[in-house]
């Protein structure tokens, strides 16, 4: 060790000296860009006329960057960047592997579509209260969660998107919103605190917070350290974030209260971050502990699926109905985590992408239905097929996609999950998946039958006028159908990406090698 008395110790041995290549900067861009644009929009919050254009342009750039990152990871493998040039585990690493990059790209698409939808649906009051800055800051938090390689940093990103989501959910301050937001805020705060408790214990055991470092050290410590406690705490904390039964009650209590575009964003993004964190912790860091918990996770998955969809069957308000469908979808993703083999986990990843797209599209469609029929209630909506056949076609497609019927994207993840559970001999899980699929067809099919097919005596001209005023919102939902059908008819690229992602989770050696390249070579 070269210590020079004059200039102090030689710090270069603790630093990364090679400059970061331009393409590797992509890994930080999905977090940095929304933070910068969010700050700019915050400064321009009184200029409500230019905000939507600027925000949609920012979201379009963000999506382009996300797609670039996905392409970069697809061709060149995981991308790592460590902050402050300190060698990991001392600097905080950002790691874009296939799982993170796929989810970031999907989240970018969802936020862009919601941004376009919001142009005509969020009025100047909503803009002045900061809808767009909150939206971009939430995207920074969501993307940061998907990309960070440090578990305490993951907690910080959770809090970033949580506080932005608080801002979005109370936007407008209606009575119902405040009621829903109170429950949402307190229960989510408790969930993230549980996450922090688990992380405190983890630090006490491992003395490190870098996920690659934890994955590397876990096998040595397994004999002596209470890793089972850690895995269980993470299951409870992230299960609550993902709205898994029996910790799902905050979701149906709050997701129907904010503006429809906010609900669409939440349904598309937030619960999936919980699923992502479960994949990272249980599957990558603590696989033996996960296999001990696997029986419990499978029963939680079955409970989440069935309770969710039975709740949906009992609702007359479309938004509340969709809230329960979101919960039911979480059950499918948990099923793959419970199975824990490559096939089941790939099903979880594909289902997560499918659910992000379809749940957002369904909420946005509910917004259009509200515009056309002036209600969210199945008791009042009727005759939309006659006023708007195109919307009826879109609705039918989305119902098929959510229920898992072709040509929608929902078919393939369900096929993968049923195959995986039969392959492992867990026939009761396969049965629950199929029954839930049938009940989803009933619950959403009834929305279609009642709102679109039932005869109505309302005046048609007024409805046609409504449609004229919301052309941008209409186009957003149509655009959303493109990837949904594309995945439905050509699923190979997504399934291939999911298999690469799952391979990275099950064999963390590549992940560890990406973060610690020097030691991997020795």
């Amino acid at each position, binding site marked *: *060790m070269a*210590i020079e*008395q004059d200039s*102090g*110790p*030689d710090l270069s041995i603790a630093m990364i000296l090679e400059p970061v290549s331009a393409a590797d900067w992509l890994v930080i861009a999905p977090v940095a860009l929304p933070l910068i644009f969010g700050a700019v929009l915050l400064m321009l919050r009184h200029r409500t006329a230019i905000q939507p254009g600027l925000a949609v342009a920012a979201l379009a750039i963000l999506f382009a960057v996300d797609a670039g990152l996905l392409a970069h990871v697809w061709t060149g493998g995981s991308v790592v960047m460590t902050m402050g040039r300190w060698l990991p585990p001392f600097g905080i690493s950002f790691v874009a592997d296939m799982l993170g990059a796929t989810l970031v790209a999907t989240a970018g698409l969802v936020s862009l579509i919601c941004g376009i939808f919001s142009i005509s649906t969020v009025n100047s009051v909503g803009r002045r209260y900061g809808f767009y800055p909150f939206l971009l800051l939430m995207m920074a938090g969501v993307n940061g969660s998907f990309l960070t390689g440090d578990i*305490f940093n993951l907690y*910080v990103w959770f*809090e970033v998107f949580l*506080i932005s989501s*608080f801002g979005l959910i*109370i936007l407008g*301050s209606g*009575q*119902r*919103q*405040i*009621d*829903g*937001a*109170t*429950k949402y*805020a*307190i229960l989510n*705060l*408790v969930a993230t*605190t549980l996450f*922090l*408790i688990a*992380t*405190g*214990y983890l*630090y*006490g055991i491992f003395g490190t917070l870098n996920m690659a470092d934890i994955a590397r050290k876990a096998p040595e410590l397994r004999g002596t350290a209470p890793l089972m406690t850690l895995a269980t705490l993470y299951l409870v904390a992230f299960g609550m974030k993902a709205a898994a039964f029996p910790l799902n009650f905050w979701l*149906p*209590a*709050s997701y*129907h*209260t904010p503006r429809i575009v906010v609900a669409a964003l939440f349904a598309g993004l937030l619960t999936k971050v919980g699923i992502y964190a479960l994949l990272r912790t249980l599957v990558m860091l603590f696989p033996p502990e996960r296999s001990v918990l696997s029986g419990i996770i499978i029963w939680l998955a079955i409970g989440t699926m069935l309770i969710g969809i039975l709740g949906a069957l*009992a*609702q*007359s*308000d479309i938004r*509340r109905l969709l809230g329960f469908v979101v919960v039911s979808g979480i059950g499918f993703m948990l099923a793959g985590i419970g199975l824990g083999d490559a096939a089941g986990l790939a099903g979880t990843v594909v289902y997560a992408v499918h659910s992000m797209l379809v749940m957002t599209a369904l909420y946005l469609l509910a917004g259009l239905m509200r515009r056309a029929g002036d209600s969210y*209630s*199945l*008791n009042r909506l009727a005759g939309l097929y006659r006023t708007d056949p195109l919307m009826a076609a879109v609705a039918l497609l989305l119902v098929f996609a959510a229920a898992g019927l072709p040509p929608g994207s929902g078919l393939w993840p369900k096929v993968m999950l049923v195959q995986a559970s039969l392959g492992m001999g867990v026939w009761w899980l396969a049965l629950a998946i199929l029954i839930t699929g049938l009940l989803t067809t009933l619950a959403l099919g*009834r929305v279609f*039958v*009642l709102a679109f*097919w*039932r005869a109505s005596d309302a005046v048609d001209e007024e409805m046609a006028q409504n449609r004229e005023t919301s052309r941008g919102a209409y186009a957003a939902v149509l655009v959303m159908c493109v990837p949904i059908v594309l995945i439905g008819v050509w699923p190979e690229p997504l399934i291939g990406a999911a298999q690469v992602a799952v391979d990275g989770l099950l064999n963390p050696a590549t992940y560890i090698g990406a973060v610690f390249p020097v030691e991997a070579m020795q």
Partner: protein
Amino acid sequence: METAFSAFVGVFFAVAVYLLLSKHIIRILLGAAILGNAVNLLIFTAGRLTREVPPIIPSDLPIPAEMTANPLPQALVLTAIVISFSFFAFLLVLTYRAYQELGTDNTEEMRVAEPVDDDMPPVGY
């Protein structure tokens, strides 16, 4: 030292959980505040306790000359304090607004978003 602190953290958690189980929002909030502090103490204790040796490296040495206090948990706790403080401030305002709007701080009576007598979907068509 760590053992005593661990027991202390346990008492904090017990109090926080007891308050969180209440029906009244204001008690739930106090529970959340205590829960946040319990976690901060937990992280602090998890980093092992060392008294009166600040983690400062002399300018001519590459590593500290003796065992020092662990600076990382302090950085983590500082982050967690800032976050839990801002959340607590937000929740205070939110629940005060909820009390103004809904006229109650009893969670069992807060049924505006999920009415008890909500109508069922139509059975036929």
